[in-house]
C-alpha cells in the first residue's frame, strides 16, 4: 500500500482546517505498522482515508493496484467491506447480537469468509459464543471485534487505539493476539495509537505530527508484546 502526497482540508464555514498536508509513506504486505501521534496530530485522518471512510483533498492512495482516493461512494463501501478489517477503541459491537452473531453478521457481506466459530475459538471465545456484548468483559468484547475483523479475511487489519479502553494486562493480551495474527497468518496489521510503547513491537513506525509525517523508521528487531511496558 502506498500513500502519496496526501492532503486533507476541512472547510468549516469560513475557516479551512488542514488536517493532513503532503503525507507520504508505504506499507508492505505482511508488515506490522504503528502510526504514532498525539491527539490532533492527523493520525485519525490517516485512518479515515486508508480505511476508505473519507477521501483526501489531494494525493493518491494505492491499495492492491487501485487508487482508492478516486473511488465512488459505492466502490468505497465495497472496499471497506472486502479489503479492510476494522478494530475500534470502543469495540462497537452490535449490542443486540451475540458474540457469534456479531461475527456472522459481517460474513453475510463477505465474499470468502472464514468459519466464524473457528475464528472465535482461536481467539479463546469458544465458551462465549452465545453471550451478548453486555455479558462480556472489555477484553472479550475486543476479541469478538477482532474476530469480526478477521473472519472476512481482509488484506489489511486497521486498528484504532485497540488497547485504549482496556486495562494494562488485557491490552497486552490483545497486542499479543495482533502480533500472532501478523506473524502466523502473514496479515498486514496497522495500529494507530498515541501510546509510544507499542511502537517497540512494530516492523515500521510512522510518527505523525501537525498533519505531517514527522519520521518513518524501520525496526529491525521488534520486541515481543510480552516485553512491552507502559
Amino acid at each position: 500500500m502506498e500513500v502519496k502526497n496526501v492532503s486533507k482540508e476541512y472547510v468549516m464555514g469560513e475557516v479551512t482546517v488542514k488536517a493532513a498536508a503532503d503525507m507520504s509513506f508505504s506499507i508492505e504486505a505482511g508488515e506490522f505498522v504503528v502510526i504514532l501521534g498525539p491527539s490532533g496530530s492527523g493520525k485519525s485522518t490517516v485512518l479515515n482515508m486508508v480505511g476508505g471512510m473519507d477521501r483526501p483533498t489531494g494525493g493518491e492512495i494505492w491499495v492492491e493496484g487501485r487508487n482508492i482516493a478516486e473511488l465512488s461512494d459505492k466502490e468505497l463501501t465495497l472496499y471497506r467491506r472486502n479489503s479492510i478489517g476494522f478494530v475500534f477503541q470502543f469495540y462497537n459491537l452490535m449490542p443486540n447480537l451475540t458474540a457469534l452473531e456479531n461475527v456472522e453478521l459481517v460474513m453475510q457481506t463477505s465474499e470468502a469468509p472464514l468459519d466464524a466459530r473457528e475464528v472465535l475459538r482461536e481467539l479463546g471465545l469458544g465458551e462465549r459464543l452465545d453471550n451478548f456484548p453486555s455479558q462480556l468483559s472489555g477484553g472479550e468484547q475486543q476479541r469478538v471485534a477482532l474476530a469480526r475483523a478477521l473472519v472476512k479475511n481482509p488484506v489489511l487489519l486497521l486498528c484504532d487505539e485497540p488497547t485504549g479502553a482496556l486495562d494494562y494486562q488485557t491490552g497486552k493480551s490483545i497486542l499479543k493476539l495482533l502480533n500472532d495474527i501478523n506473524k502466523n497468518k502473514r496479515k498486514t496489521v496497522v495500529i494507530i495509537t498515541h501510546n509510544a510503547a507499542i511502537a517497540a513491537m512494530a516492523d515500521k513506525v510512522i510518527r505523525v505530527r501537525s498533519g505531517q509525517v514527522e519520521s518513518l523508521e524501520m525496526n529491525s528487531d521488534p520486541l515481543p508484546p510480552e516485553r512491552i511496558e507502559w
Partner: protein
Amino acid sequence: MKILLRKLKRDLWQSKGQFISVLVLVIIGVMFYSGINATYRNLTETSEKYYKDYRMGDLWISFFKAPESAEEEVRALPFVKMATGRVVRDAKLDISGDNAVVRLISMPDTRTEVVNDIDIKSGSYFSDAGNSQCLVEQEFFEANGLEVGDCIYPVINGVEVKLSIAGSVKSPEFVYSVRDSAEIMPDNKRFGIVYLKKSYEQAIFGYEGSINDLSVILEEGTDIGKARDEIRDLLKDYTVTGITERKDQSSNRMLTEEIKGLQSLGGFFPILFFVVAAAIIYITMSRLVENQRTQIGVLKAFGFTDMFVLAHYLSYSVILAVTGSIIGSVFGMLLGKGFTEMENMYFKLPPADMKLYPELVLPATLLTLLFCLLAGYNSCKRVFRIMPSEAMKTRAPVKGRKILLERIGILWRGLRYNWKMVLRNIFRYKKRALLSSTGVIFAVAITFVSLSMNSSVNYLIDQQYSNIQDYDIKVGFSRMLNMEELNSVESLPYVKKMEPVVETGVEITNGWRKKDIAFTALVSKPEIYKVVDKNGLPVDPPDNGILIPERLSVELGLKPGDMAELKPYLPGKDKREVRVSGLIVQYLGSSAYGSMESVARIFGEGRFANSAVLKLDGSEHEKEVIEKLKKMPVVSSVQSKSDSKENLIKNMDMMMTSVLLMILLAAVLAVAVIYNIATINIFERQRELATLKVLGFKDNEVRNLIFNENYLLTAFGIILGLPLGRLIGGYMMSMYQTDAYTFPFIAGMDVYAITAVFIICFTILANLILRKKIKVINMVEVLKSNE
C-alpha cells in the same frame, strides 16, 4: 432561568422534525375539536331559535278529510297551546324541462300566527289582488331559477292550474326538504313546497270548510304519548291516517341525527389525535430525559430543585400544548365555518346566525394541556430519582437479551441477522413499540372505516337501484285502479313490463308496541320491483301473511310465525290479524310487504292498485313515456329511477371528499408516529449504524435495519387495526340506522387489502423522509467514545 429557556429552545431546534410532527397532531386534534363543536353549536342553537321563532309543531295529524271545526276541538284540549288546520296535497309540476312534485300547503289568506310558520325571503305574503297566488320554498325557488312574479302550473285533478309567485319563503318544517322519510338526499329541483291561500287550496281540491292536516304545539311538559292518544280519540270520527311526533318528522329527524353524529364525532375524533400525540410526547420526553441525565445531575448538583428541573422539562409539553391549541383553534374556527356551510348545503338554516366560537379555545387548550402534561409528567417524573452523583457515572451499557421468539428454534435460525436485530430491538423497547403501534392501529382503523363506508354506500346504491328497483319508472295514481285501467298503462308504447303495486299506510301492532309504517303489495312473483333478504336474494311476497324488515321485527318484537295486527289507513277498514311469514332487508323506507292476493285477503278488497312500476324497452324512450303518463288524468306522480339514483350519486361526491379527508388524516397520524419513533431509534443507534457503514454495509442494508422495524410495526398495526376498524365501522353503520333507512355494512376483502396498501404506503412515505437522517450519519461516530 433565561439561560435554561435558551437551552430549551436549542433542544427544540435539534429535534425540530419531531416537534413539528407532534405539533401537527395536536393542531389537527384541536382543529377538529373546535371545528366540529362549533358546527354542532351552530346547528343546535340556530335550529332551536328557528323552531321557536317560527313555531315548529310538536305533532302532525293527518286525515282524509275533517271539518275545520276539528281545529277548534283540538285547540280546546288543555295541553294544546296552539293548533293550525291545513290542507296538504302533492301535485305534479313540469318545471325546468323536468317533472317535479310540489307539496301544496295552505296558509291563512291574510297573515296570522300559525304553527309551522314561514319566513319570507323575497317578495311578500299573499295580497288581496287575487286568489291564485303562491309562496315558493326558497331552495326550490333557487334551484329552478324562479323569480317573484313568475308563474308555475301544477296539475291538480288533471288540470294545469296557473299560480303566480308572490314570494319565496323558508319554514322550520322543511330545513331538510325531502318528500318522505325514505328519501335520503334532498332533490331541490324535483321536490319543493308551495304555499297557497287556504280558501283557494280548499276550493281547488274540493275541501271547502275542510282540512286534512292539523299541526299542533303542546304546552310545555306535556306527555307526548298521552297527548297523541287523546287527540286520536278526539278525532276518531275523521279517519286519522297518521300522527307524527316531532322526533319522527323527516326534516327534524335528519337534523337531530346529524347533530347527534357531530356530537359524538367532536368528542371521539380529537381524542384519537391527542392520544397519539401524548404517546409520542411520552416516548420523546423519556428519551430526552434519559439522554440528558448527566445534565440533570449537574443541575441538581448546583442546587436546582426537583420541581424546577421537572418544570424545565415539562415546558416542552406546555409549549406544544399552547402553540398547538392556538394554531389549532384558529384553523378550527375556519373549519367550523366551513363545516357549518357544508352542513347547511343540506340543512337550510338561516345563515345570519352562524357564529365563530372563540370561547372554545379555552376548553381546547385545557384538554390539550391535560394530555400533553400527563404524558410529559409520566416521562419526566424520573428526574426525581436522578441523584446529582449520577452526573459522574457513565450510563449502563445497552443490554442485549434473547427474546421469546428464539425458543422457536427453526423459525429463529431461518432469520437473517438484520431481522434478528430488528426483532430484538422491538422487544427490547416493548413499550415504545406498543405506543407507536397505537398510532398505526388508529390510522388503520380510520382508513378502514372510511373505505368501508364508501363500499357500503356503493353496495346500497347497487342493491337498491339494480337489484331491488329493476324498473325504470314508478307511477302513482290519484285513486285505486282496476286491472282494465292498468292495462291502458301497460299498453303504452315502449313499456316492456308493468307490475301493479298497492301502497298504503298501516298501523302495525304487537301487544303494546305499535308503529305507523307503509304497506306495499307486489305481484306474487315480482321481477322488476323485488323484496330481498340480507344476502340480496329475492323473496317472494306471501299470499297469506306479510314480510317485515329486520329492524322492524326487532323494534316490535315480532319473529317469523308471530301474529301481528294491521290497521290500514283506508276509510272504513278495521284491524286484521296477519302472520309474519318472513324477514327481509329494506334499505330505504319502512314497509310491510305482501302479495296482491294478500291485499284482498287482509283488507277484503278486490284486485286493484294505486301505483305501478314500469320497465321500458330501452332508456332512450324514457322521456317520451313520462310525457304520455303525465297526460293521463289518473296519474298523480311519475318518478324516474335514474333521476333519483343520479341525485343520490351526485350527493355522494361529498362523501368521497370526506373519505379522502379521513384517509389524509390517517396518513398524518401514521407518518407522524413512525417518523418520531424511527427518529429516536436512529438517534439512539447512531453508533451501531455508523459501525455498520464502516464495516462496509451498503446504504440500503443500513437503512433496512430501521425500515424493517417500521414495516414490522406497520404489519402489527394492520393486524390489530383491521378488526378494530371492522368493529368501529359496524358500530357506526348501526348508528346510522333509523326508521327510514338501514345502511348495510359491507367490507369485502378489497377493503381490507386497500387499507393495508394505504398503510404500507404511509410507512414507505415516512421511510422516504427518514432516508436522509440515515444518510447523514457520520462514520467518524465510531471513533468517538461513549458519552
